[in-house]
């Protein structure tokens, strides 16, 4: 099935690229959504069966593939609205945009399921290519700069991952094996050469931080989310970050079987704590709403990796957190394109009184703020609480206290800007011809936020079992 899926998706992407007709464009997008949904359901029903030798839908892959499917449908819908509202978009630019969007979603999905580190790596490269086309959508100097930085940093990061893979093969050589699939690495974990494994982990971790959005390589992602159109930014801030998590998590599971486990935990904890710290510093300072959302993503990924490093209940919380974060953050990004249509600016200084101009949208932002800062009843509250518990149980009290202080500052900084946007009157804003936005365009955001609350407070048994299965190979 995955072979059919990949071929069909790439054919759709190619047709979108060549096509200039609006009707055909929309039909192709609908076909892709159906394909993506069908593929997700099929993989869920065929869990654990290896396909084409390199792809195996395990529990983690299926969870994130489901997340991808749920996020990508509104993403395509909002992309369609975005293009329709930008009348100046030529058919050629539109064709490139949708073609790259479909390619990005396909590559992310395939990378989730890849059971071989080199195959996952190839799809990570394809995501870089398609993401750069999306960032360059507006074809001006700023978006060029964003694209250039993203491409360059991602090129270095994929090179780092490749160096990591080479070191991994050296670690395997001692065992006399050349098979770099995750299953083989798992079964031979205890016999690997520890020196090479350590180097391999360092390089692979550093490489994937560009996608995950952790220190040291988080910078490229911020510019990308800022410069890309908001629906594409929503994908970068959610499913693409999850791809970085998958890459690190799969190699972490191997490391966890070896004596290097504690060392890897310390590496991850340092990077994660620094990420939360940097996110705090910038969220206090930044005045661009989209970049505030992007830095909020850095903070959440830092929390996720803190959960992984702390262990215990933290593993469960980490996976729950990335899934719920994907729903919440994508709805905020989708809403942002409506905010931009109202104010024609990203700066917080130009915004205000949003309740007056778009009641439904303002409610989304208010609820989204409550959800993303993990206040009850947000589902993220549950997962963050479990992460804090795991830090407490792991005797990382100093880290826990510092992180809580930083999170308080983040809530203050985020709240200050959101409430300015919602309630304070804007200065020098001419509201005589504000764009009218239909409430129905906010429907998908409500659905995503509701889903995140539901999955956090009352998770279905199937969902819990899948998360438990994803982390069962990790030592308690």
């Amino acid at each position: 099935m995955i072979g059919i899926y990949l071929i069909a998706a790439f054919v759709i992407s190619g047709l979108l690229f060549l096509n200039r007709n609006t009707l055909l464009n929309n039909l192709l997008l609908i076909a892709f959504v159906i394909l993506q949904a069908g593929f997700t359901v099929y993989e869920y029903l065929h869990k654990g069966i290896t396909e084409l030798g390199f792809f195996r839908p395990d529990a983690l892959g299926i969870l994130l593939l489901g997340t991808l499917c749920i996020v990508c449908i509104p993403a395509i819908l909002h992309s369609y609205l975005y293009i329709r509202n930008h009348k100046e978009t030529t058919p050629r630019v539109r064709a490139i945009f949708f073609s790259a969007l479909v390619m990005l979603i396909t590559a992310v999905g395939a990378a989730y399921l890849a059971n071989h580190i080199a195959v996952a790596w190839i799809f990570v490269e394809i995501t870089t290519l398609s993401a750069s086309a999306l960032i360059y959508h507006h074809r001006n100097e700023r978006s060029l700069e964003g694209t250039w930085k993203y491409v360059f940093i991602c090129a270095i990061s994929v090179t780092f991952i490749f160096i990591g893979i080479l070191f991994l093969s050296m670690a395997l050589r001692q065992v006399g094996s050349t098979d770099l699939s995750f299953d083989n690495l798992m079964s031979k974990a205890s016999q690997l050469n520890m020196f090479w494994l350590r180097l391999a982990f360092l390089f692979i971790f550093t490489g994937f931080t560009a996608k995950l959005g952790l220190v040291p390589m988080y910078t490229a992602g911020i510019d990308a989310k800022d410069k890309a159109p908001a629906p594409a930014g929503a994908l970068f801030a959610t499913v693409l970050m999850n791809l970085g998590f998958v890459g690190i998590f799969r190699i972490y599971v191997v490391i966890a079987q070896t004596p290097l486990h504690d060392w890897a935990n310390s590496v991850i904890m340092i990077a994660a704590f620094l990420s939360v710290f940097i996110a705090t510093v910038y969220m206090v300072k930044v005045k661009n709403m989209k970049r505030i959302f992007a830095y909020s993503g850095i903070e959440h990924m830092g929390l996720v990796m803190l959960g992984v490093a702390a262990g215990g209940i933290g593993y469960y919380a980490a996976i729950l957190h990335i899934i719920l974060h994907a729903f919440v953050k994508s709805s905020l990004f989708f809403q942002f394109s409506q905010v931009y249509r109202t104010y024609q600016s990203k700066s917080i200084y130009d915004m205000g009184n949003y309740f007056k101009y778009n009641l439904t949208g303002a409610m989304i932002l208010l609820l989204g703020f409550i959800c993303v800062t993990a206040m009850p009843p947000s589902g993220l509250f549950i997962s963050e609480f479990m992460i804090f518990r795991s830090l407490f149980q792991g005797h990382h009290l100093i880290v826990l206290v510092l992180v809580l202080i930083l999170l308080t500052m983040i809530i203050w900084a985020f709240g200050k800007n959101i409430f300015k946007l919602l309630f304070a009157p804007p200065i020098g804003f001419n509201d005589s011809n504000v764009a009218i936005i239909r409430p129905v365009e906010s429907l998908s955001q409500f659905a995503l936020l509701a889903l995140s609350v539901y999955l956090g407070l009352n998770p279905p048994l199937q969902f819990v079992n899948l998360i438990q299965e994803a982390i069962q190979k990790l030592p308690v």
Partner: protein
Amino acid sequence: MINVLLITFAMSLLYLSIANRLLTYIKILSLQGILLFGVAFIELNEISTLNLVLILLETIVFKAIAVPVFINYVIKRNNITREAEPFLPNFVSLIIVTLIIVVTIILSTSISDPYLNKIFFIVALATIFSGLYIIATRKKVITHVMGYMIIENGVFILSLAVGNEMPMLVNLGIMLDIFASVLILGIFVNKIGDVLKDVSVDQLRNLKD
């Protein structure tokens, strides 16, 4: 013979650190491509003919000819001035690159792995870190691209060290090299040249917080 080639390669890094002109950088990149072909040809004696042809194309045609010609074209077309404009004096650069090589030698002597081909490891690691150093300390965007090409050369040497057991990894390395170079240079020649006339990093400094 491999040792001679690899040591020449390491010496080219030292020369790179004191090079003043962009043309010298391009010539060094070209020389490195030829040296890499020699290393690959001698080292990979168990490899199939098809793979060898691929490596020949990659090293000679791509690394030694296509990329340097292309960068030269970009420089001419965009009227980029010919100085490399380092942030640090050449003397300091020379010392730092020497230190990088010394540190990698010390690091490799601490490894007790009977399968390890030490000279490959030393030269590869030194090349990767020198490339990062070049990227960090040069002002122009085009020198960043060349620094990235140098990192790629280091990765290629590293992949040759395991090339006999796992030829797939050499091929993947080649794929990475071509893919990333085409992407980076493609953006460079098509877009940056049009939007920005004088290509230095100074122009690409608007996105910040």
